[in-house]
């Protein structure tokens, strides 16, 4: 059978349960696709032996499955795992030189949850170093290339989960894990025509995921459909005693909540997201999406989130501050890279040389900005002020939801995918603007999902973002399903790699 790797999670699951295909066949199809994809540079550590062992075990489990004793939700389904997740015995480097050769002795809770649900791990996926970036250009493994291509330029798949989004769009795996601190699931999903959801802060355990900014980081899936996002998110979520911020709320059966019926739902259009200089195409995409949700029976309402403009500057205080603290652990003592020292070098030189060699330019920049905003004399002026503004940003959302709004519709990104290297000489702030529509959601801890909504004039995918109430991922995904159905986006990149 051909093209098994192009299946969705739901499609493959149904064929596995019906015994039309085996997990080994499915896994071999993905491994063959991965073998032929080196020019995309999405899979950076391939684990075919592990994958085939897991696939064989899944086939045995599926053979025993019955209605009384069904196989677990992801049994036999091959996934890619972002390099930020610690995977036992498999290199986990957060795409950084400072973790070169690091093989964890433990498995992250989220990847363990996926394995417990029967998933097959194909390997580790490229990303921006320590998840800091929006173009996958800060990786020690080199750039990931977007499978979408419209001219001779190589395009970015977005970041930081660029390898995850690219691999899913190119059918190298059925779905992949991502993480989202300021938009790192949703922006790459939008750039690659895939679905990506960041759940409510606390839904997924952060244990075993290399930390960037602990109050903002959340894991989530990147998938080929909204249904797949529901299936995979449910398997990833759940309380974990090893993460004190992980929620004890029960995880609903998200797939069972997918009806596509959004009649009577109130969907907000935030006026502050209509930014100066927004391209007409993005504006039109947004308008069309709103019209389609209205056709599906939703009530569209104009809303205001007055502090939106201050989300990015607040983020670029809080995230680097937390990063400078989290990344203090990379000191060349207990794991990872240690610089070769000159005669007479002491421990301070060891730290300084190790971190200068091990961290890339963007990571160094953010660690130092974070150090500065936390330093004596500036803590109140920068860090505390940013946290107060963050409280106001959250309040904006609380007010809108208290007024009865069920979800908020906005563009995911201010543009389609851009060329790799095009931003090389721009100042770092230009790159940060990629997150302008996504970062508010992290600051407020809310769930947000990007759904592919159309192609721009060049033929590149664009996404629309739906933002939901805290802990209401089920309703949010249902709304996303209605949007997905109404838009009917089915384009795939033409294989050139």
């Amino acid at each position, binding site marked *: 059978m051909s093209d098994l790797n192009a299946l969705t999670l739901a499609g493959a699951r149904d064929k596995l349960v019906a015994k039309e295909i085996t997990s080994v066949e499915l896994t071999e199809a993905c491994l063959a696709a991965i073998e032929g994809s080196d020019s995309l540079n999405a899979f950076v550590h391939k684990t075919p032996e592990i994958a085939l062992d897991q696939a064989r075990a899944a086939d045995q489990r599926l053979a025993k499955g019955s209605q009384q004793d069904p196989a677990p939700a992801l049994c036999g389904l091959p996934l890619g795992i972002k390099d930020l997740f610690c995977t036992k015995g498999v290199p986990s480097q957060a795409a950084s030189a400072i973790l070169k050769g690091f093989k964890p002795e433990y498995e992250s809770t989220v990847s363990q949850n996926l394995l417990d649900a029967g998933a097959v791990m194909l390997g580790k996926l490229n990303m921006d170093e320590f998840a800091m970036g929006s173009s996958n250009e800060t990786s020690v493994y080199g750039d990931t290339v977007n499978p979408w291509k419209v001219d001779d330029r190589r395009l970015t798949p977005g970041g930081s989960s660029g390898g995850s989004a690219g691999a899913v769009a190119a059918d190298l795996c059925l779905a992949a894990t991502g993480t989202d601190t300021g938009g790192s699931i949703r922006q790459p999903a939008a750039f690659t025509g895939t679905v990506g959801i960041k759940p*409510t802060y606390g839904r997924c355990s952060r244990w075993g995921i290399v930390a960037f900014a602990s109050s903002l980081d959340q894991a989530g899936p990147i998938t080929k459909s909204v249904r797949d996002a529901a299936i995979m998110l449910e398997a990833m979520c759940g309380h974990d005693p090893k993460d004190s911020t992980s929620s004890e709320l029960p995880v609903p059966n998200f797939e069972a909540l997918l009806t596509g019926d959004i009649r009577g739902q109130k969907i907000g259009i935030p006026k502050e997201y209509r930014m100066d200089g927004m391209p007409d195409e993005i504006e039109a995409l947004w308008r069309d999406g709103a019209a389609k949700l209205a056709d599906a029976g939703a009530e569209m309402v104009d809303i205001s989130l007055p502090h939106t403009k201050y989300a990015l*500057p607040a983020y670029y205080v809080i995230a680097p501050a937390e990063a400078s603290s989290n990344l203090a652990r990379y000191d060349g003592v207990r794991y990872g890279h240690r610089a070769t020292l000159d005669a007479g070098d002491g421990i301070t030189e060891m730290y300084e040389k190790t*971190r200068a060699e091990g961290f890339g330019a963007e990571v160094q920049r953010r660690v130092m900005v974070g150090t500065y905003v936390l330093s004596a004399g500036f803590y109140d002026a920068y860090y505390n002020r940013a946290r107060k503004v963050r409280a106001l940003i959250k309040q904006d959302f609380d007010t809108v939801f208290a007024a009865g709004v069920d979800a908020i519709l906005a563009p995911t990104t201010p543009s389609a995918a851009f060329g790799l290297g095009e931003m090389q000489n721009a100042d770092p702030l230009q790159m940060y603007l990629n997150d302008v529509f996504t970062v508010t959601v992290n600051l407020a801890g809310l769930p947000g999902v990007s759904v592919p909504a159309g192609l721009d004039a060049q033929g590149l995918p664009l996404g629309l973002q739906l933002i939901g109430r805290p802990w209401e991922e089920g309703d949010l995904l249902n709304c996303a399903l209605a949007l997905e159905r109404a838009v009917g986006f089915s384009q795939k990149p033409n294989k050139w790699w």
Partner: protein
Amino acid sequence: MAIDTETAARVAKLARIKVEDSDLPALAGEFNAILGFIEQLNEVDVSGIEPMTSVTPMRLKRRVDAVTDGDQQDKIRANAPDFREGFFAVPKVVE
């Protein structure tokens, strides 16, 4: 406030990242661009607002004060750059 090369050098030192003197002016320039962007936060009236400490209103959970794991020296040393006689080895700290 503008960051000069001296401040940039001090921040690099605090962050324990070696930056060559020749790279300090460019670094100071980048800091200034980023901090200039952050300055916008001064436009916001934050009087009476408490700094946000947790995205969800929750009290951090406490666990039982009991040993839950241990006795795994081999796992802990497995990734160490220099491990000798039961210790992580580093350059001499005290003369």
